[in-house]
């Protein structure tokens, strides 16, 4: 009993409660968390709970199950902090926060293999409310709808329509570029430059946005050859 509950630690933070876990399979971690809550149901009534699940990769069903189990105990899950991009995206899709105001105890370890040649490949349309952050390049095959955001250290390439917000070179790389088949974004950013409003075009053509010689963010038609 004690052994299983010891897998999860719950402590108070400014925004509610934060649960952290000892490395173990997700089933055991989840069991540990629920066991702790069931020990003191009165204390947890109406609590706001954030999870720090480390590098654990969770699927939608895992998070939905946990959220429903927690809500039956009148505990609301509001944030999931993870080192895994997959889990972060899952959490965002469910409308959960992926950051809390308290800085993480240790700086997030960047995966060592991420360099300027690494790209995250996203093979779907990003709907409103989706946010993708990646410390390299991002390639999307699909549209970026209004209300969706992509924030990348490197370049962003969208094989589709861009109508959301894209920030390339977010760590200050002014040579980063953004290309798309139709670049009618609400806003584009490269490094610390912010674009003027881009008008949706009647007959969209592929464009590439970069910072020009005058230091302004500019979109140009894609020239072949």
């Amino acid at each position, binding site marked *: 009993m004690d052994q299983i509950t010891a897998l999860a630690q719950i402590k108070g933070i400014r925004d509610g409660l934060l649960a952290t876990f000892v490395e173990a399979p997700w089933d055991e971690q989840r069991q540990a968390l629920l066991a702790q809550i069931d020990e003191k149901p009165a204390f947890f009534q109406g609590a706001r709970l954030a999870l720090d699940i480390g590098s654990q990769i969770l699927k939608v069903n895992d998070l939905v199950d946990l959220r429903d189990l927690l809500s039956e105990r009148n505990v*609301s899950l509001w944030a999931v902090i993870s080192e895994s991009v997959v889990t972060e995206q899952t959490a965002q*899709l*469910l409308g959960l926060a992926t950051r809390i105001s308290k800085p993480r105890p240790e700086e997030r370890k960047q995966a060592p293999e991420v360099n300027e040649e690494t790209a995250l490949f996203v093979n779907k*349309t990003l709907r409103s*409310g989706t946010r993708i952050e990646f410390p390299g390049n991002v390639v999307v095959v699909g549209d970026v709808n*209004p*209300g969706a955001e992509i924030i990348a250290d490197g370049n962003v390439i969208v094989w589709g329509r861009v109508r959301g917000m894209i920030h390339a070179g977010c760590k200050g790389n002014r040579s980063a570029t953004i290309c798309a088949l139709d670049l009618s974004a609400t806003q584009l950013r490269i490094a610390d430059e912010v674009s003027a409003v881009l008008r949706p075009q009647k007959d969209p053509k592929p464009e590439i946005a970069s910072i020009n010689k005058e230091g302004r963010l500019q979109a140009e038609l894609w020239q072949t050859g």
Partner: protein
Amino acid sequence: MTAQVITVTSGKGGVGKTTAVANLANALAMDGKRVVCIDGDIGLRNLDVVMGLENRIVYDLVDVIEGRCKLKQAMIRDKRYPELYLIPAAQTRDKNAVSPSDMVRICNDLRADSDFVIIDSPAGIERGFRNSIAAADRVLVVTNPEVSAVRDADRVVGILEAEEKGSPALILNRLNPALVRNNDMLSAEDVLDLLGIQLIGIVPEDETVIIGSNRGAPVAADGKSRAGQAFRNIAKRLQGQDVPFMDLEPQSGLWSAIQKITGRK
């Protein structure tokens, strides 16, 4: 035979979820179906007013969940259609009075004795929304041809896909063909292009809808109302019938374009 549970949701408020639920329920009842509506908007109940059943409420959804009455006691029979029932929301409680598993349990209890269970979801993507979609076999997303409503609908579609509820179907409500013609309103094509989901009906802007809602007499029963016709068509499509889309604007190529888009999906 077992009922199909349909949740009507939207993200943004005020786009016509409750009106759509009342009208679809009436239209299905007119076709002889046994229908139960559930108002999922605990704390802000409206569906009883739109259906004209406000003064008959004795027990509500929360009374059933908390065991103060039997399910049958909370089912209010409609004035016109004896096979149409409403389970109203509690007005004096909040969304936390209900959990997703409560909704699944209640819907499962209703399945045996009805053909359709229609749940009216509250606006937003929080607890009330999650309660409402928990039991759904099928989700209908209502939106208006407005940029803000479409963006919220897009968010809801994303959540439904993430929760593996399948791709929802779209009801485009309050379309004004004259404004679309002058490029002052998003067209059905624009909306479908962005959302990329199947279209199940377009309801034209029609003032009889508001009058009907205020009187507690949904326009689906009004043979002359254009919006009523649109809702009756959607009800037929929910029953698996292939009904052509209404011709709102015969002189343009809009409708063939929509059929092309929906046919492709």
